[in-house]
């Protein structure tokens, strides 16, 4: 099966990314947009574009009916959901199938099994993938929670089973804190995710967030494309990512990669996916969650492997076997990505939406910019604050850092505040340069 036309059910830089991949493959593109996004770049680049609702995401980008309406009436063969929005919505995947439109991603079943975080952990345990010590599934009541927490040892994390992406997480330092927070956590989860189930995990310190990119076809083949270190986080949102991870040995890489592939096969996965692990200083790694979609930071993996992940997603969704074997995957050089957001780092990263005046992205060898911005474009306050992803590649980590600093310095964005000054400082920070920073790095250090 060859796709003739794909609908991109997303916006911003990822919509542009997907349109670019389709263009190169000779596939027609259909963009959708909310009224607020009328002037977006993805709307201009697509072959066709349709307004699907007013500003609010729930009425536009999450408007299943309008999206399917566009997809069917424009005779799309497939839908690419990008990340966020409906990317991990099993219902959406199912509706696409019932309309005879291919959802470019895994099956609704795989999405469900990995979307329920506590169920995912159970699946991983059965697949022989190490997991963080914690409760066996959802905690039913307070007594059970207290008992389990005593067994694991404090501090303990309370996690929403329907959460993900850093949301729905609370820390309990002791029993008193646990008792106080657990009911709140359940209520919050119910409201935010429609599912009040929470589970407990041991709170580990000195951990790095190391995730493994996998891609699988619909014929049972799954390969991993190496890892990404995403430990530079602020309030659990990633700011900088790099591939490979500075502290990983080839043996550990192979072990984590194999675990990731086992995990994917355990749920008959197809498409691109990411296994997130916590890596301890002792080299012990633990499964955290699986994201059944393409991720924001996928470019760094593309830079070090030479694989176009979006095109490969389309390739496997068409029913083809993977274009390469595990042996053919080679990690070459070093790549770093900085997320340039419309936020003021001097004012606690306060959002800074507004109209971009002068705009000049950096260039030169080994520099890539994934963005939906352009001079005169307005970053609206309704969606995320991302302006651009700045990605570099160089033969070594040291050179990649130097290149990123050079590129950041050239990157001119006028009219709004950006996190570029923050990234400049970060890239010079001793701990970052050493490479052994953990996920508490930004919390515990002034940058």
């Amino acid at each position, binding site marked *: 099966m060859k796709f003739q036309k794909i609908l991109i059910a997303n916006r911003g830089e990822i919509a542009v990314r997907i349109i670019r991949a389709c263009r190169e493959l000779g596939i027609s593109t259909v963009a959708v947009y909310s*009224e607020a996004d009328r002037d977006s770049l993805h*709307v*201009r680049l697509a072959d*066709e574009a*349709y307004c699907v609702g007013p500003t609010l995401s729930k009425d536009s980008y999450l408007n299943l009916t309008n999206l*399917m309406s566009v997809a069917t009436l424009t005779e799309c063969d497939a839908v690419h959901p990008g990340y966020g929005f409906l990317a991990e919505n099993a219902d959406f995947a199912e509706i696409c199938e019932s309309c005879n439109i291919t959802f470019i991603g895994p099956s609704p079943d795989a999405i469900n099994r990995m979307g329920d975080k506590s169920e995912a952990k159970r699946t991983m345990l059965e697949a022989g993938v190490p997991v963080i010590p914690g409760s066996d599934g959802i905690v039913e009541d307070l007594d059970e929670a207290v008992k389990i927490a005593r067994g694991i040892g404090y501090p303990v994390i309370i996690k929403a089973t329907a959460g993900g992406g850093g949301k729905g997480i609370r820390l309990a330092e002791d029993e008193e804190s646990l008792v106080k927070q657990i009911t709140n956590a359940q209520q919050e989860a119910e409201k935010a995710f429609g599912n009040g189930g929470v589970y407990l995990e041991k709170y580990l310190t000195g951990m790095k967030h190391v995730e493994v990119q996998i891609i699988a076809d619909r014929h049972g083949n799954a390969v991993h494309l190496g890892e990404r270190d995403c430990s530079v986080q602020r309030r659990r949102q990633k700011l900088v990512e790099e591939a490979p991870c500075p502290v990983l040995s080839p043996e550990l890489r192979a072990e984590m990669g194999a675990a990731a592939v086992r995990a994917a096969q355990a749920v008959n996965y197809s498409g691109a996916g990411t296994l997130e692990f916590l890596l301890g200083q002792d080299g012990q790694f633990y499964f955290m969650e699986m994201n059944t979609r393409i991720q924001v930071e996928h470019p760094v993996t593309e830079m070090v492997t030479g694989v176009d992940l979006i095109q490969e997603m389309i390739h496997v969704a068409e029913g083809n076997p993977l274009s390469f074997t595990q042996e053919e995957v080679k990690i070459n050089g070093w790549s770093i990505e900085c997320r340039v957001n419309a936020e003021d780092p001097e004012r606690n990263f306060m959002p800074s939406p507004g109209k971009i005046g002068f705009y000049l992205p950096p260039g030169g060898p080994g520099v890539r910019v994934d963005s939906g911005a352009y001079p005169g474009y307005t970053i609206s306050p309704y969606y995320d604050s991302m302006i651009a992803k700045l990605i570099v590649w160089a033969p070594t980590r040291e050179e990649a850092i130097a290149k990123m600093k050079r590129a950041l310095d050239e990157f001119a964005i006028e009219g709004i505040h950006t996190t570029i000054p923050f990234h400049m400082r970060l890239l010079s920070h001793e701990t970052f340069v050493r490479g052994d920073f953990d996920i508490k790095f930004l919390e515990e250090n002034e940058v």
Partner: protein
Amino acid sequence: MFKLNEIKELIQLLDETSVQEVEIENEGSRLVIRKPGKAETVYVQAPTAAPVMQQASQPAAAPQAAPTAPAATAAPEVDPTLHTIASPMVGTFYRSPSPEAGSFTGVGEKVTHKSVVCIIEAMKLMNELEAEVNGTIVEVLAENGQLVEYGQPLFLVKPE
């Protein structure tokens, strides 16, 4: 020779009609005014001795290449007193309840708040659209069977 204010008046007159082109010859002078829709050019040619005066007025706002959504976005100015009925969803626009039946409404017809003016079909569900104003239909802006997007103008209504 045409005087400047005469030429101005002529252009203004032309603007108020749907006439596309006017050519006038008078006392050896030839004036051509042409409206191709996107640009207006005015040529004035005087006989031999006098220097040839050529005036080209600026082309109307340059359209952009975007071959995107249905032409609705490039609509000419709408009379502000008229009410626009816009589509609240993405779907197929139907003017009648079924292929054999007559249209719900049309130009010159009266509508009330609750009058059904059209059907938007989305995902096999027929959604009846109500006028939501009392008035008279002045223009129908979409074609039967056309894909309409969210916010696309469908009818112009002169409110009571």
